[in-house]
């Protein structure tokens, strides 16, 4: 699982730059301590408000992120692909829905499920079932549903809507893939690098990598949410919020651009209360199945050709599912 971490990274020849990163971090920490309370800039009310919003989204999401990566670390250490594969039927007609349900039982965020899905294909699972799992696992697992319920305490039906719309998306894509035997699009899936390592070490490495990966993208999302609240004039936000179609398009775009972890995205959506529930449901359904980070990861694990077809298809199906379910339930 540790290998398929997707986003192309710099070649090993730039090794010294890593030390620069650590040095830059140390300097930034020292500067932060030195500047605390000493510069008029930090008394600026807008900056202080922005900081409060930014930090609060990060802090609120953190426990959920930690819970998720702890579980993904345990899966990495104790669940072999063979074990998972034994529970997934071979025939697509049965495999697709059961893979969707397996997504419910195996909590994790999208960053964790991409490598798991890769392993499933490598282990001989029908690609359609693996893809269904890939789409369902990050969207409908208990951790994500609980964090959604916590983020929207007054709108319990949103949790149901999120579950249904995400499940519908996963099953639709899986069924479509099974029907056209699209397995041929999949490039060879890379094997895992299971070193002879202790389980504890595998656990910590998988968990921390997922934590930093997902945490980093969460910070990008929190930055965007806090900045949207403060920089974009209220009147513009309200104009967009008043137009349902514009809101839906904006949230679909945001979900793709921001690449927030599915365990944290509900808190970002809750931070934008002026928008309709349906448009925010679009954000919650699109985000876990497709975003910039995932496109990079899909290309890394399944190949570029696959990613080019999968991305627009998934985006379209997710938006339609969310709008349909939103219309019915919200």
């Amino acid at each position: 699982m540790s290998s398929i971490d997707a986003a192309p990274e710099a070649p090993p020849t730039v090794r010294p730059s890593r030390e620069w990163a650590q040095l830059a971090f140390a300097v930034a920490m020292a500067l932060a301590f030195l500047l605390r309370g000493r510069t008029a800039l930090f008394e600026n009310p807008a900056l202080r408000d922005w900081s409060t919003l930014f930090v609060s989204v990060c802090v609120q999401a953190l426990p959920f992120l930690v819970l998720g990566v702890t579980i993904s670390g345990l899966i990495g250490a104790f669940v072999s692909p063979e074990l998972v594969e034994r529970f997934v039927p071979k025939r697509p007609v049965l495999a697709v829905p059961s893979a969707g349900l397996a997504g419910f039982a195996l909590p994790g965020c999208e960053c964790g499920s991409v490598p798991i899905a890769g392993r499933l294909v490598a282990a001989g699972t029908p690609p359609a079932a693996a893809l269904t799992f890939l789409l369902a696992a990050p969207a409908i697992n208990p951790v994500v549903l609980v964090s959604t319920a916590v983020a929207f305490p007054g709108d319990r039906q949103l949790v149901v809507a999120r579950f249904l719309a995400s499940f519908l998306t996963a099953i639709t894509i899986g069924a479509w893939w099974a029907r056209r035997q699209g397995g041929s699009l999949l490039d060879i899936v890379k094997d895992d690098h299971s070193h002879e390592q202790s389980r504890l070490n595998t656990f910590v490495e998988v968990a921390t990598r997922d934590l930093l990966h997902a945490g980093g993208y969460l910070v990008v999302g929190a930055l965007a949410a806090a900045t949207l609240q403060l920089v974009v004039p209220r009147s513009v936000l309200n104009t967009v919020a008043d137009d349902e179609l514009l809101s839906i398009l904006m949230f679909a775009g945001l979900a793709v651009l921001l690449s927030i972890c599915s365990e944290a995205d509900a808190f970002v959506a809750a931070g934008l209360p002026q928008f309709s529930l349906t448009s925010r449901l679009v954000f919650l359904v699109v985000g876990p199945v497709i975003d910039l980070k995932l496109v990079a990861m899909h290309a890394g694990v399944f190949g570029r050709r696959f990613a080019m077809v999968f991305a627009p298809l998934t985006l379209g199906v997710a938006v339609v599912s969310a709008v349909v379910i939103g219309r019915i339930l919200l």
Partner: protein
Amino acid sequence: MTRGGAATVLVCVGAIIGRLVQSGGFGWFVQQRMRIPLALAALIILAFGLYLLLVHPGDDTDHDGHDHDGHDHDGHDDHDHGRVPKVGWLMALPILVLISVAPTALGASAADRLEAITPLETTERFPPLSSDEPTEMGVYDFIERAVWDDERTLEGAEVRLVGLVVNDDEIDDGFRLTRFLVSCCAADGLPVQVVVHGLAEELPNDTWVDIVVTWRPPEVPYGESEGTDDIEADIVELQILDEPPADPYESPY
């Protein structure tokens, strides 16, 4: 990100979040019920960081003699143990903001930016208020009674409210007593306000006060007047608080 870099970021995040829980400052950002989940998260992150920092499994020699997948030049040849993507460094950003800007709870500037909210209509029956001593009440509850209580239990009763001062140029004998209603975290906070009258001098914005007030029933029913629909009250007693309350926010649930 190297194993060392990942460990450094995690130890810093765990330590600062742990400190934020211990000092109670976490209440500026999220609700009180997040205390234990946050404390656990901080401990786990700290433990992860310390493990990465202190334990180095001896597979360093593994690197060059081991052709993992035959695609050794396709972006997977970052032979760090953790292979943590660079985006992980961003996790340090909220910590840097916490240390340098040292943000606190939402206050007057946020109240100016956001529109104050009015409670939705409720069919709830309100219990009568004590006439002996002031009843403690949330600002939201006060407004809910003022607007939706058909029996007008608030009339003539003394009520104790805690909130912060938000000055308004159009109010010359008082201020907008403000509290934020937070359902999840401070990012969704919206102000609730009662305009209080009967104060000679002006208090600075963001001063926390504990006040006893009596409701000033509107001349025209709320929602039917031409001007604002401010909920108004008269100050009976005012005490300046040195410290904000443990939970600066009110929760609607």
